[in-house]
């Protein structure tokens, strides 16, 4: 008989539109992070390190990259005879078929998957945070406190608390109230979007609220359980936890990895982060190159200068090129004598010679200033940038571009150049 004490359901179907062109072709959990990883590697590694060997990954938006990355779960040792990792996309039903309309709706549509494993507890995770967390400790807390629902939360500075969903708890961590983005927060415990439910409680709640449109955990399921009087506790987490939902927070989180002793340390033997590695060879640093305060992935070749940057796998940086404060993802090629300042360059991008990124005076982005800001240059996946052009700050380029797209060889700061071309 199949029996798993706790299984995890990992919500990985969201677009993450605030990451701009980085998520135009892939779901946010599939976006590269820290040179060789993808964001989903962190919750998946946490699962296996916490002893959870059954993980359902709910996909919807642009799942191809995510599917190929996860495969049958080999990199995380989640290739199991029973359990392991299962990708769960929305599917057609004999009655009314629908997409996943909300976080809890996605879980509701997969009740049968969870039922198969006969679990006592279900862990709900989202695939868009960078952290290391032992879910088993959280489960111990859940059992000891006698909770039916446990919400992980972490203390944030009180002046920032109004940006989060806040939980208010008594001294035993029993939740007494919730506030969504409150103006005058009564607590500084921000919900991390990580929940442990007793299976019976979850199932009952999902079925009871099944007809709610866009069924969401934070908006519907948690309030439903709370009103019903189910004991709810909050598990306080004090480690590193970073939301990488915006380009600037994504850039910052990457930059934190290159500190001498980073707060989020990937070099510890304990609690390793696993990922699918397609490229194995060592990296080559050429005779005339300089590499300082940077991390670089496998198989990259550096002929130029790299400072304060996160470089992925299989990247080539040409001779005479200077890269500063930038993120360059897997398999991207940068020509020679380029200047790259504070740029986020996605995978498989080709940049010609004598290109300058992020050198001109800063201007606000003309189409989406809420996304492309902080002086960052963002280049989308598989873009081609011709030689001898300058691209300004807060600008975005995506697709195959040629010199005609750059009048006088310039794309001014704040401009958006998105072309379809393959």
């Amino acid at each position: 008989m199949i029996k798993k004490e706790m299984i995890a359901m990992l919500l990985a179907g969201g677009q993450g539109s605030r990451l701009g062109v980085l998520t135009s072709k892939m779901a946010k959990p599939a976006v590269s992070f820290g040179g060789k990883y993808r964001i989903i590697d962190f919750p998946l590694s946490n699962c296996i390190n916490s002893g959870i060997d059954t993980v359902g990954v709910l996909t919807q938006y642009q799942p191809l990259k995510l599917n190929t990355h996860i495969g049958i779960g080999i990199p995380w040792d989640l290739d199991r005879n029973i359990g392991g990792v299962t990708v769960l996309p929305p599917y057609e039903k004999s009655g009314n078929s629908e997409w996943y309309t909300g976080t809890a709706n996605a879980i509701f549509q997969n009740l049968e998957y969870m039922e198969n494993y006969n679990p006592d507890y279900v862990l709900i995770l989202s695939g868009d945070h960078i952290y290391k967390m032992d879910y088993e400790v959280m489960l111990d807390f859940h059992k000891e406190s006698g909770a039916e629902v446990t919400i992980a939360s972490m203390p944030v500075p009180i002046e920032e608390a109004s940006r989060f969903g806040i939980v208010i708890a008594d001294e035993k961590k029993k939740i007494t109230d919730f506030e969504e983005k409150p103006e005058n927060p009564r607590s500084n415990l921000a919900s991390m979007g990580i929940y442990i439910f007793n299976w019976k409680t979850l199932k009952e709640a999902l079925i009871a609220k099944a007809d709610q449109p866009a069924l969401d955990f934070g908006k519907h399921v948690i309030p439903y359980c709370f009103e019903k009087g189910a004991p709810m506790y909050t598990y306080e987490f004090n480690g590193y936890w970073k939301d990488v939902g915006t380009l600037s927070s994504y850039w910052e989180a990457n930059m934190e990895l290159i500190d001498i002793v980073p707060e989020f340390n990937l070099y510890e033997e304990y609690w390793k982060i696993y990922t699918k590695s397609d490229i194995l060879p060592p990296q080559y640093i050429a005779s005339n190159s300089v590499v300082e305060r940077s991390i670089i992935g496998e198989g990259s070749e550096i002929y130029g200068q790299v400072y304060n940057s996160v470089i992925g796998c299989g990247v080539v940086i040409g001779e005479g090129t200077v890269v500063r404060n930038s993120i360059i993802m897997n398999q991207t090629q940068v020509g020679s004598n380029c200047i790259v300042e504070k740029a986020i360059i996605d995978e498989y991008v080709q940049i010609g010679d004598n290109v300058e990124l992020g050198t001109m005076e800063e201007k606000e982005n003309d189409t989406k200033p809420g996304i492309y800001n902080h002086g960052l240059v963002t280049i989308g996946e598989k873009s081609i940038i011709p030689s001898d052009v300058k691209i300004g700050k807060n600008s975005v380029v995506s697709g195959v571009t040629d010199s005609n797209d750059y009048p006088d060889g310039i794309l001014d700061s704040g401009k958006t150049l998105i072309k379809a071309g393959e």
Partner: protein
Amino acid sequence: MRALGIILAGGNSKRMKELSHKRAISAMPVAGSYRSIDFTLSNMTNSHIQKVAVITQYNSRSLHEHLNSSKWWDFGRKQGGLYTFTPTVTPDNSNWYRGTAESIYQNILFLKRSHEPYVVIANGDCVYKMDYNKVLEYHIAKKADITVVVKDMPADAEIERYGTVKMNEDFRIEEFEEKPMVVKSTTVSCGIYVIRRRQLIELLEKCAEEGRYDFVQDILIRYKDVKRIYGYKINSYWRNIASVEDYYGTNMDFLKPEIRNYFFKQHPDVYSKVDDLPPAKYNPGAQVKNSLISSGCIVNGTVENSILFKQVFVGNNCYIKNSIILNDVYLGDNTHIENCIVESRDTIRANSYHVGENGIKVVVEKNERYVL
């Protein structure tokens, strides 16, 4: 493919000096991220060989650790897959493998129970890329009994440590000498053979009856006038690593762009066990020139013309030149290493000084890393 693979990985060589104290040559780390045997294993999988036996004997712990899962080379199969054979005691036999031929003979049931018509035999201590299908096609076209892959070596190579061959204009091998005292030919055997499975079984059984154990001496040399033994000449990169000098030289070859390109970028890839290490990290003070750096390394000092294998820590103000630092070595501050090979998992205390004066020095210190 219509062949199964046998990898002879049991050997040892005095020429490896201290480096073979810890492991068989086939398990030697090569080119930063690989082990020697990865090249032959990858060649086999890339040639679509479905079933491979690795025969081990000498100091095989490290090798078996490396082969703990067959999935890295795509040998995690229901049909075929990866087999490792070590000597075992049976009611009829309590000997170690006394030679290459006997090592296969002791596992002859593996051959008898297979159905592939041909066998590719290769060693695990050479660095090369090869499509064995090409050798097999040649073998069939020549109607050969055994095909031996051969290569012309430069005159300054240590030819005395190879088997040398002389071939007629049809490439049939007429002379074969193992480790000759006087070098008469610079064409050497690469230790890669193609042979029909039934032919191999027959030859091995005959050898065993006669109390002969060595594949080269007792099969290739002894039968060279009776059987049709052909040479298949290659011009591509091939290098045996079984001496300290050749091991060092082979690794240093990877600093050349054309060699790196050939192995790392051109199809097909070389596979290895994945270690889940973070990207290499360069802290302020790092100065790296013309070097290969593997994942998990943390560099604080100067590294020139060197290869750092996985998880090497280079302390502040270190100076490393023309050296190979094997996996998981910790180099304390102000350490000077030049013309050396530093053995894996070692801890070199701060302010150490190691220079290979006449040739390459093998550094083995065996210090404790953490003093409590």
